[in-house]
């Protein structure tokens, strides 16, 4: 696929000496939804801020559609829309004026028809003459999205888009994100909610301590790092594992009522057949069988653990 944002060897050290980003390399494909996943202070916002021109990089290069973000800042920034993490809005201007301001700032000619539709899509049309300070937090978030989309960007950055957002807005937001993607817009969102990445992203990048630990196709990531568990419930509890089952990765839990078998779906064989035969041979009676897959959350926590160990 065609690369729209190319980040090479990007590092950022703040004046305080804090190293927010360490040699980040990342290619973002046109039209994809990329989730940058990481805990607070991981460097997600710094990365986005550099691409958008709010923070200057210390080392490295970023190109947006081939345009260098520093030398060709006009061309690169015209393509980008940014929804910041904080509700950073003015106070006394109206919704309508503020989105017209945003559009003009990006050099675009007035287009009331487009902006009207945009406000309608974001359920803001009936608030168009409200002053920003009178809006609720959720409404302000919608206004920020409208401002970011006011100049019809090809790339949209959403920094922690669902922080403090109710269910309805979250649903609306994902609907908008999917619609934008369908129209060819590339979307990069940061989050520390794993379900969010799991729900909407095509690819997931895990970032921690200023390092991009990995970027993977979401499905591949889940498969690669995803462990599955087979939960076997027994009719009669056992006090200890029978000798014949000691060769398996088995755990006894819930007072001997349940056996947990952990296996890798990517292995040559999962060993389930042999295990079930062995259980049968050991004379255990089964009550129920269930499998569970590790979520992105588990994967994430494991990655962070590995990072801390190394």
């Amino acid at each position, binding site marked *: 696929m065609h690369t729209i944002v190319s980040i090479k060897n990007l590092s950022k050290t703040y004046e305080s000496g804090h190293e927010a980003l360490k040699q980040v390399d990342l290619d973002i494909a046109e039209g994809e939804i990329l989730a940058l996943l990481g805990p607070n202070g991981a460097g997600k916002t710094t990365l986005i801020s550099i691409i958008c021109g709010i*923070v*200057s990089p210390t080392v490295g290069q970023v190109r947006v559609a081939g345009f260098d973000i520093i030398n060709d*800042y006009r061309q690169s920034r015209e393509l*980008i829309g*940014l929804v910041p993490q904080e509700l*950073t*809005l003015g106070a006394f201007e109206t919704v309508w004026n503020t989105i017209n301001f*945003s559009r*003009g700032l990006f050099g675009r000619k007035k287009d009331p028809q487009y902006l009207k539709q945009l406000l309608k899509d974001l359920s803001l049309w009936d608030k168009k003459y409200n002053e920003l300070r009178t809006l609720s937090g959720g409404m302000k978030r919608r206004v920020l999205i409208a401002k970011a989309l006011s100049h019809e960007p090809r790339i949209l950055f959403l920094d922690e888009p669902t922080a403090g957002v109710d269910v309805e807005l979250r649903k609306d937001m994902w609907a908008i994100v999917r619609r934008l993607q369908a129209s060819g817009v590339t979307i990069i969102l940061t989050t520390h909610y794993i379900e969010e990445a799991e729900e909407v992203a095509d690819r997931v990048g895990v970032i921690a301590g200023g390092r991009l630990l990995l970027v993977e196709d979401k499905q591949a990531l889940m498969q690669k790092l995803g462990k599955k568990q087979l939960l076997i419930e027994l009719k009669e509890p056992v006090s200890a594992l029978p000798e014949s089952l000691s060769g398996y990765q088995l755990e006894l839990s819930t007072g001997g009522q349940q056996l947990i078998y952990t296996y890798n779906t990517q292995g040559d064989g999962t060993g389930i057949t042999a295990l079930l035969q062995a259980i049968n041979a050991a004379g255990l009676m089964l009550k129920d069988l269930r499998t569970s897959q590790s979520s992105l959350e588990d994967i994430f926590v494991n990655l962070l653990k590995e990072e801390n160990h190394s």
Partner: protein
Amino acid sequence: MNTQAIKVIYKYEMLRAWKTLFQSLASPVISTSLYFIVFGSAIGSRIEQIEGVSYGLFIVPGLTMLSILTQSVANASFGIFFPKFTGSIYEVLSAPVSSFEILVGYVGAATSKSLIIGCIILLTASFFVDLKIMHPFWAAAFLILTCISFSLFGFIIGLWASNFEKLQIIPLLVITPLVFLGGSFYSVQMLPPFWQSVSLLNPVLYLVSGFRWSFFEVSDVSVGISLFMIVVFLLVCLVIVGWIFKTGYRLKQ
């Protein structure tokens, strides 16, 4: 050149004044009238003419300068400080606009506003005294140059200020004393020799003197020097603003 961006910034800033139109207009009119009543009529009637000009008339240029200096600084500093304060400055920083375009938008609007206020004050003054401007071209030139350079100065303060207190402190502790001691209400020649020399260090003296000359051909220092000083001040402000944008001081991390 992103002219669209300049236009929206300019319009946005002008709209801010438009929304508080009554305050924007009423405050210069009222304060000018008060000065005229107190200084022009009450006290001025007991003061003899200064260099052939009645006192009421004599204070008009200084009074106008007093207002446009404070208005330029206040408007321009607040215009850029407030987005910094709310955080909405992120948008300007991430937009395809050059520093020059940002500057033209914000400082242009602040300059326009002070120019309008300057004209309103002169108009108000003409109700109290028989106002005649001997060199209208030079009066306009001094007025415009002053509005531009002090709007630039205000812009610098707005960028530098990290809180509301800092935003107020320069206008309060620097601008106001300089204006009052810069011969707005008197001729520097009325001071003892020592204080005359000290006054020459005050940049506002040159503005007031030059502006007053264009009204009455009466001045404390020669017009050429006045003009030279204001251009120097303008250039110094431009250099500082240029440095701020180049280094991203207080704007970018």
